[in-house]
């Protein structure tokens, strides 16, 4: 999830885009989706679960009535009697842990009835065993809030043997909230995510079924989904699966059957106001259908969405590995449904734009790239988003930088005005600087200091850590390491350690010194050029009578580089002299400071740490270099701007007189 960055960008938008896009009729969309449905093939993943869901949407009541049959293959290696299920929508209730965390960070948050969300389970039957509804109870593995109902557990009368299957039939009803935290309704728009009881993951020898927290996302096993969705005929639907059939019912509804496999979640969207746009892209694993659903007023962004997803597919295919699915559904949420935007589900992503996004602000491009990237870092490399969020959001933020740089040019790939720019790297650094020393990357998502710390560390710091790592191992090695990591761990649940070991293996280097500080530590990296000056040689007059002769043998030049904080990082230091000579030094950074002394015919003019500007983790951009001759241009420029803004404050107040 993009975590509010789009909101910041939206504020910067000042001009309206007004261009149309080709809108394919609904019928064509369905036909193309049907064409995209592929026959069953060899499994890509270890399919632990199989869900069959029949669901009916009631748009008037904002409810979904459903029955679910989930088949669980017990591959845990031991008998299982207790089964936990996620009931994510129950987070949207006043007494939940999600709400408590929301209030902790934002005490001004006020409850409104339309915020209510729920999954109400009415019965659970274990097929062949009997009704187990009475064993259903809520558990709180992460805190002591007994009012939190986001995890339910059931107990079977007898254990399911290792290697055997168990089938649960669950009847439930969803109460959809008005769009909040990725899911819900807004006017006639529905984004339905995390909407069905989902069984936990047996991981590291125990059930892993975390409560839904304000800053956590999701974790589930791979499997298959067959989902029948019934809703009014006029709804235009998109889902994270192939459309197998669509039949119209006599009561004015239609039923659409979707099938999806080798995925760990299923989400869908519906709105009569969507305009579908179809396109395709062909890569190393075949053709991918691009199914874009555009909300009213946003057609001007359609081309931008499509171009970006094609470019992103191309780069991921080239750099990290093939995209094996035959489709990607992209949902453009309507005006006012911002919280449904910028979210990833397997083979379905939600986007974000605004009516006034100028082409120089790459908001739609950024969100599209980021969410598609999650098809790799979350969708296929299915890490535990609760406990190691940096592995999906962070790695994805790193690849976002690389791909946005490749697609739109490094240095100006977020805001690209003639007068000023904001690059992806800078944006990630800003996130990192928000919370540079609060939490390590490895902290579980619900245990961060606050939302800013979670966002800053998980997205910005991870991206900065990996971008800085490029300096140590090289950009090509990083790319090979990520490709190896993806190809090796796709359709599995790797851990942070798996990722770090892959980096070490591919680079052939022991990188623990770096990981200990950057990944599992909170040390700050801040190097400065503390001193820079020249002394004439000789410094004293050789002609005692005239006092002349000073400096006739050149200059002794001094540079002191200081490590201000605890993070130790080898760095390059480049010195320039008046005659154009340049000297490059390499310092291991282990001591607290180092002094370089040079006897040269000319004076030193500048010294710069990290002249290639690769150490993004250095917290202060300005003290890593120093010159002997000051230039006031930057100061004057900022001073002029500051004066200008102050004058406007005066003008606004003077309007009252």
């Amino acid at each position: 999830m993009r975590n509010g960055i789009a909101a910041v960008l939206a504020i910067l938008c000042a001009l309206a885009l007004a261009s149309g896009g080709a809108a394919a009729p609904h019928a064509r969309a369905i036909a193309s989706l049907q064409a995209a449905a592929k026959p069953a093939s060899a499994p890509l993943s270890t399919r632990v679960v199989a869900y069959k869901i029949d669901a009916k949407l009631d748009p008037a009541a904002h409810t979904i009535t459903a029955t679910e049959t989930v088949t669980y293959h017990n591959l845990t290696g031991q008998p299982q009697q207790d089964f936990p299920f996620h009931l994510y929508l129950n987070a949207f209730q006043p007494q939940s842990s999600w709400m408590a965390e929301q209030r902790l960070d934002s005490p001004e948050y006020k409850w409104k009835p339309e915020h209510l969300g729920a999954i109400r389970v009415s019965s659970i039957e274990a097929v062949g065993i009997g009704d187990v509804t009475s064993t259903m109870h809520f558990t709180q593995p992460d805190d002591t809030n007994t009012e939190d109902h986001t995890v339910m557990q059931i107990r079977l009368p007898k254990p399911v043997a290792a290697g055997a299957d168990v089938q649960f039939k669950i009847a439930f009803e969803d109460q959809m909230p008005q769009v909040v935290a990725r899911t819900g309704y807004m006017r006639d728009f529905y984004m339905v995510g995390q909407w069905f009881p989902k069984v936990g993951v047996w991981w590291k020898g125990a059930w892993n079924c975390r409560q839904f927290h304000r800053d956590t996302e999701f974790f589930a096993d791979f499997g298959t989904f067959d989902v029948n969705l019934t809703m009014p005929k006029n709804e235009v639907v998109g889902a994270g699966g192939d459309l197998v059939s669509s039949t119209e019912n006599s009561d004015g509804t239609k039923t659409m059957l979707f099938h999806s496999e080798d995925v760990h979640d299923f989400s869908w969207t519906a709105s009569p106001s969507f305009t579908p746009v179809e396109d395709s892209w062909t890569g190393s694993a075949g053709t991918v259908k691009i199914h874009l659903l555009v909300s009213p007023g946003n057609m001007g962004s359609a081309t931008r969405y499509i171009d970006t997803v094609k470019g992103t597919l191309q780069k991921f295919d080239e750099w990290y590995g093939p995209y094996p699915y035959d489709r990607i559904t992209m949902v453009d949420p309507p005006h006012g449904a911002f919280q449904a935007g910028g979210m990833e589900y397997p083979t379905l992503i939600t986007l974000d734009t605004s009516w006034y996004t100028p082409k120089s602000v790459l908001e739609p491009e950024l969100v599209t790239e980021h969410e598609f990237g999650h098809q790799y870092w979350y969708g296929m490399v299915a890490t535990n988003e609760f406990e190691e969020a940096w592995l999906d959001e962070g790695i994805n933020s790193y690849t976002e930088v690389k791909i946005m740089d490749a697609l739109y040019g490094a240095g100006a790939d977020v805001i690209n005005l003639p007068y000023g720019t904001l690059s992806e790297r800078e944006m990630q650094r800003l996130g990192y600087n928000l919370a540079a020393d609060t939490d390590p990357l490895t902290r579980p998502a619900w245990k961060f200091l606050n939302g800013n710390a979670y966002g800053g560390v998980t997205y910005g710091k991870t991206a900065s850590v990996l971008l800085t790592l490029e300096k140590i191992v090289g950009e090509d090695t990083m790319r090979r390491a990520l490709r190896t990591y993806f190809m090796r761990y796709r359709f599995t649940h790797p851990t942070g350690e798996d990722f770090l070991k892959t980096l070490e293996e591919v680079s052939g280097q022991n990188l623990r010194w770096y990981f200990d500080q950057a990944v599992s530590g909170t040390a700050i990296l801040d190097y400065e050029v503390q001193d820079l000056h020249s002394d004439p040689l000789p410094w004293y007059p050789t002609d005692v009578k005239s006092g002349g002769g000073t400096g006739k043998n050149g200059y002794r030049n001094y540079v002191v580089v200081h490590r201000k904080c605890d993070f130790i990082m080898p760095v390059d230091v480049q010195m320039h002299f008046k005659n154009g000579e340049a000297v490059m030094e390499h310092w291991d950074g282990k001591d607290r400071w180092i002094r370089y002394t040079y006897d040269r015919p000319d004076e030193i003019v500048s010294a710069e740490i990290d002249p290639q500007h690769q150490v993004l983790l250095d917290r202060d951009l300005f003290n890593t270099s120093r010159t002997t001759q000051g230039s006031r241009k930057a100061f004057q420029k900022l001073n002029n701007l500051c004066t200008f803004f102050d004058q406007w404050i005066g003008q606004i107040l003077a309007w009252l007189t």
Partner: protein
Amino acid sequence: MSEGKSGVFTGGASLVWRRQRVLWWPYLVCLLLAHFAASTTMGRLDWFLQRSLASDRLLVHGFSFGAVIELMSGQSPLLSFGHEGMHFGFVFFFFMLLVTGGILEAYWRDATLTTMEFFQNGGRYFWRFFRLVMFLLVALIPVGVIAAVTSSVADSVDKKSISPFPAVWIQVAGAVIVLFLLMTVRLWFDMAEVTAVAESETGAWRCLKAGFRLLRGNFGSLFWLYFRISFLAWLGEAIMLHIWVRHVPPEWTRVSFVLGQLIVLFWMGMRWWQRASEVLWYQAHGLEDLLPRAPIDEPAPVPEVATVA
């Protein structure tokens, strides 16, 4: 002395041009005060930026929003807009309150006032105008309420309507109404201030009533006069901002400064134009409207006021 509608419009510009002194002095005060405020804000940055290669790379040859935000963020930010600017703003506000009387008097007489005369007049009207500002703040409360209600209605419609557009149109309509009301209220108080100067009226309340009567009786012509100049101001500002952002290279620091100051000066000039036009309008129409209507067979007495060339 009486001028037609276009005469008042162009005559106002001409009057501002002839009496430039009363524009230049407030502009220079505005620049100086803002410069001092900015220097306070920027003081710590001077040495810091002077000796860093990053300053040149990120702020001179280009303008990195990221670098500026970094300077503004952190636990002890080196750059923070706001406090000093607000302090300056309030000082400038009181300065303008002090000199508005002098400016209007110079326009009313169409004469160059001595510094003594200028500030004597400013002082003479200071408390009257201060009271008018208090009344203005009260008059703006309903405008604020209308803005809040519009926003609330738009939110409510947004939740109930199937289309997102009605709420947006409500917001746009609300913004237009609020802008219209803001302009109307400002125009009303402008006329009250002109009345105070023209009639040497000491009662703020009586000035307000006179201003209201003038506005009610001549709303079309007065509003059109005010709106035309406002429109030209917005247009000019938009063009200059466009030139600044799109066509001035980031490293042209001096050109940027000059253009920025032109933007401020132009804005002030347009506001002064409104003031001058209102004075001329009052001289052409205002007194007749305020005085009891004369019998048809007897011509209305014509007051002695300064003529406008």
